[in-house]
């Protein structure tokens, strides 16, 4: 096994740590890193974590059509989900619609999908966006597909838990309505993060480095998890794990 850890492996292990102890994690389509993280967490859970991957024939447990994921979340049966964003701002608002003055968007994104719903219902929503630039992490999104925080009178059982990027991890402080830098990935530093982050956030006195996966985790990841990931994301699995294990 190579001693070198791929950046994707670091992200997978980091996200997987956020899922330990949960009962059911759902993962949207086209999410190889969150999907791998969920499968890693499941492998470590001794079978107690259920993983539902949209777009996977083998890992989809649903038999009631497109609505079931959403109904299931409303029933309180989904503990964690992942969302991204063309833009993400300092209040954890996400924009999946477009840049500019909607509906006259200068840049159009694919659309909000289920974000406006799941963000308010799933207790632990992990924002995941590899690209960490001031273009993505903005002071204020141009369009709120789904709000990071809500007024007190809004029934909200879910919301942002953390934001994981290619450079660092932010925790979200719901009371303060702000992100807080939680850890910096190896090879990156706090100045660089400040430079590439468009929104303001809190920084503790000591910012730890994001821990790298230990040997046991890497073995699990490159073995069993890689095989499972390959069912849904064959190209991703081949690129990341085959190279890393070479």
């Amino acid at each position, binding site marked *: 096994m190579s001693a070198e850890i791929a950046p994707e492996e670091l992200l997978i292990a980091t996200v997987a740590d956020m899922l330990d102890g949960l009962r059911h994690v759902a993962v949207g389509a086209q999410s190889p890193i969150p999907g791998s993280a969920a499968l890693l967490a499941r492998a470590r859970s001794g079978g107690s974590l259920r993983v539902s991957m949209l777009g996977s024939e083998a890992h989809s447990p*649903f038999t009631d*059509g497109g609505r079931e994921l959403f109904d299931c979340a409303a029933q309180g049966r989904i503990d964690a989900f992942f969302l991204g964003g063309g833009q993400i701002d300092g209040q954890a608002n996400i924009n999946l619609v477009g840049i500019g003055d909607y509906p006259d968007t200068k840049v159009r994104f694919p659309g909000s999908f289920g974000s406006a719903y799941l963000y308010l219902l799933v207790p632990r929503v992990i924002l995941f966006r590899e690209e960490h630039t001031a273009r993505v992490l903005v002071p204020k999104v141009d369009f709120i597909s789904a709000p990071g925080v809500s007024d007190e009178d809004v*029934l909200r059982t879910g919301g942002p838990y953390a934001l994981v990027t290619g450079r660092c991890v932010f925790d979200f402080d719901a009371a303060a309505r702000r992100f807080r830098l939680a850890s910096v990935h190896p090879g990156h530093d706090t100045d660089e993060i400040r430079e590439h982050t468009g929104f303001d956030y809190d920084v503790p006195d000591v910012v730890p480095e994001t821990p790298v996966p230990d040997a046991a985790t890497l073995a699990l990841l490159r073995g069993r998890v890689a095989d499972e990931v390959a069912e849904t994301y064959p190209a991703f699995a081949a690129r990341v794990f085959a190279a890393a294990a070479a």
Partner: protein
Amino acid sequence: MSELFTSVEDLAERIPNGAKVALAPDYSGCSMVTTRALVARGARDLHLIGVPSVGFQGDMLIGAGCVATLETAAVTLDEYGPAPRFMAAVKAGTLKVIDGTCPAIHAGLQAAEKGIPFMPVRGIVGSDLLKHRDDWTIGTDPFGEQDGPLVLVKAIRPDVTLIHVPLADRHGNAWIGVRREMMVMAHAARETFVTADEIYDGDLLADEQLAPGTIPGLYVSALAKATNGAWPVGLFGRYGPDDAHLRDYLERARTDAGFAGWLDEFVYAPKAAE
């Protein structure tokens, strides 16, 4: 009930200009063969409803100028990247987009399925989507157990649901397996048009194992056999997407001229050659 059976061209004729047409996402059951027939007949002013999203099917119809309005939670080609003709139409301002969110689309169709004027939906409060929807409003729980605002979504009643399935029978029963969004689409729409890869020789509803995944013929207005009818996107459980064709499409659809060439080759030419 053999009057159910017709040609793909007839299905396209029977979807009038201006119709509200519900479509399944690319990974579910897309009647791509009828999509091309719609383009070939020069359909105009369609109001597409993505249940809950559209992909290549929507992109092609938009590119061919068939679509006035697109109501959807997203336009996504998944790993293939942005949808080129959709992007171009948004930029040109020739397409009205009604941005929604998946559960609200499902709920709107379920309201139509039940003949009720609206359905409450959790979440959404605080999203800018709400600001642009006059068919969504804010209500409250009349029983007072849930404080605060509650989004109410108006029923969505499509004129036509258009889908492709692996298997249908002579009674119009159409097997959809676990892709049950198509069941709600068929219940909610005034008419449902189905193309099927294969005609089942028997009654799908009489088979204990097949019936649970079957849309009853009761909801199906017309049916055409179309082997490989979901090509070039895939059909669940049967065949995958035609990767080479889709990548070629994306390359050509970057430009108006390239897309026109694609249309000529794959939509107009096959018809002209008949």
